[in-house]
């Protein structure tokens, strides 16, 4: 049989599975063949799917379930019982997850088939997936370029059609930025929407799990499945989960979309700028009301983030000390040597840099000047969004100031790398939600992403806006040449 399915969206695949036009096993086999053919060029997976396991799960799948028989790839930071979970860190090579993360358990319950572990920046620290002990992942639109990060493997897998959908995590843009650079849809839910239980913690007040998909409808479907209160995460919200797949059916007439002047700054690539402007015009044509807004503290977001996130990381990563799990050094002199040498040998440079930075800003004498002040500026950033959402229902911005950059281009200057997240970070700091969707290409055929930011629990609005735009534009139908 010569028919291929790997370019299908989850929703169209679901319809074909339900109509018995195709079986889960045929889908699994087609995807496994695609991964064999393409992953040597992209290296999206740290661990490619175990073919036998995938076939067995597919053969047993119940297609009447919401994701029955749909293969989904998982970022190597989420625990899937019995699978490795390395966070792309040498320190966790050999680790096997003893339990399912809640988001994974929900996917499992919905009938999904897990297909492999996607690459990422070590412990989700980075914007290019170059900080990985497994090597770099390549962008499906240009293999000389980075896929973005930290969830670059998930983005490249979905963008390169070697996954129908994937889960990632977003602490400062780690879903939206790589989705933008790889030409797919990436959604960062409101803080508390999705349980973080079983997600290896980077910065606990910022981390959220979210989907990478080929279409907005798929993002709505996956979000619907993974959301909801979980007694195992005391920051997960006790709120009902709306029917996101219904919310997308409304058009945007009457929807107020804000355009913040602070996101159209010098330094933004002219091709990105004109694509975003064209998207704003498209929304006006579709009947949305475009309003000018201001988020005055935007310029401080990056500085606040690089105090708060490393501070939380330095505490969270203290657990990786060679005692309970991970690769312990051989023949340690004493217990201190177990900690110090295990960490020295196990962590890569970016993780070490952030642990030192975080320890410094929390240390005696500096705590007030750095951490406390950053938490206050963070509140101002949150207040900016609260004020803005009195005037509009969602906000339109670029996701990333540039399209995908070259491998190696920013690795020697961490500060330059940090600035790649300049448009996504404030969303995490404020705790609100955001989605990146394809909105065009550069002359060199690199994807450009539009970010749609929603208020707290505003996922229905951003998905509705995203879907209306997607249906009116051709970008999501383009396939990379890979």
């Amino acid at each position: 049989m010569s028919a291929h399915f790997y370019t299908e969206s989850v929703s169209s695949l679901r319809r074909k599975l339900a109509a018995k036009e195709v079986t889960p096993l045929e889908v699994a086999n087609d995807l496994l063949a695609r991964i064999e053919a393409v992953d040597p060029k992209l290296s999206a997976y740290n661990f490619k799917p175990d073919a036998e396991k995938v076939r067995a799960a597919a053969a047993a799948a119940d297609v009447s379930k919401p994701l029955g028989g749909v293969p989904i790839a998982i970022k190597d930071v989420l625990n899937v019982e019995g699978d490795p979970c390395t966070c792309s860190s040498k320190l966790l090579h050999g680790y096997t997850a003893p339990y399912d993360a809640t988001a994974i358990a929900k996917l499992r319950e919905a009938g999904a088939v897990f297909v492999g572990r996607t690459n990422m920046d070590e412990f989700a620290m980075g914007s290019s997936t170059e900080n990985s002990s497994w090597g770099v992942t390549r962008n499906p639109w240009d293999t000389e370029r980075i896929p973005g990060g930290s969830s670059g493997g998930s983005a490249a897998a979905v963008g390169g059609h070697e996954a129908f959908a994937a889960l990632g995590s977003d602490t400062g843009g780690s879903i939206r930025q790589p989705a933008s650079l790889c030409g797919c849809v990436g959604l960062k839910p409101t803080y508390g929407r999705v349980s973080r239980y079983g997600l290896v913690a980077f910065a606990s007040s910022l981390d959220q799990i979210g989907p990478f998909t080929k279409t907005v409808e798929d993002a709505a479907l996956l979000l619907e499945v993974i959301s909801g209160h979980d007694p195992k995460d005391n920051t997960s919200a006790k709120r009902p989960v709306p029917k996101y797949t219904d919310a997308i059916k409304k058009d945007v007439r009457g929807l107020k979309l804000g355009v913040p002047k602070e996101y159209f700054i010098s330094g933004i690539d002219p091709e990105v700028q004109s694509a975003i402007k064209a998207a704003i015009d498209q929304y006006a044509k579709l009947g949305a009301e475009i309003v000018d807004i201001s988020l005055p503290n935007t310029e401080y977001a990056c500085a606040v983030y690089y105090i708060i996130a490393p501070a939380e990381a330095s505490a969270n990563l203290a657990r990786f000390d060679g005692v309970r799990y991970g690769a312990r050094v051989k023949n340690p002199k004493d217990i201190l040597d177990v900690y110090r040498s295990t960490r020295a040998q196990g962590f890569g440079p970016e993780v070490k840099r952030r642990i030192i930075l975080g320890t410094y800003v929390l240390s005696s004498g500096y705590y007030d000047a750095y951490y406390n002040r950053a938490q206050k500026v963070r509140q101002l950033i949150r207040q900016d969004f609260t004020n803005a959402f009195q005037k509009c229902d969602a906000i339109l911005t670029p996701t990333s100031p540039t399209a995908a950059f070259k491998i190696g281009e920013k690795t020697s200057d961490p500060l330059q790398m940090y600035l790649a997240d300049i448009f996504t970070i404030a969303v995490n700091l404020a705790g609100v939600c955001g989605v990146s969707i394809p909105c065009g290409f550069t002359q060199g055929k690199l994807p450009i992403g539009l970010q749609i930011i929603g208020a707290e629990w505003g996922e229905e609005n951003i998905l509705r806006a995203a879907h209306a735009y997607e249906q009116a534009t051709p970008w999501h139908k383009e396939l990379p040449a890979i």
Partner: protein
Amino acid sequence: MASPEIDVRYVADLARLDLTDAEAATFQKQLSSILGYVAQLEKVDVSGVPAFSGPVVNNLREDVAGESLPVEVALSNAPKQDNNLIVVPKMIE
């Protein structure tokens, strides 16, 4: 926050992290530059501003015993163990 001075070796020691000389030198330079960048927060007037509080704060569950991982599963990744305990080098002489 005015003078971003960081003694990388001292801080790494607090974080229980050994550094090579080359790492210490590179980090010293890079972290000074990053601290110089974040020092711009000094410009912000934060008088009277409360510290951040997010969308969800401490949804605590009832304090009742529930199912948990069996001991052997919880210990399955421990580098060294004996008799359901994790073994580490001697801490106290």
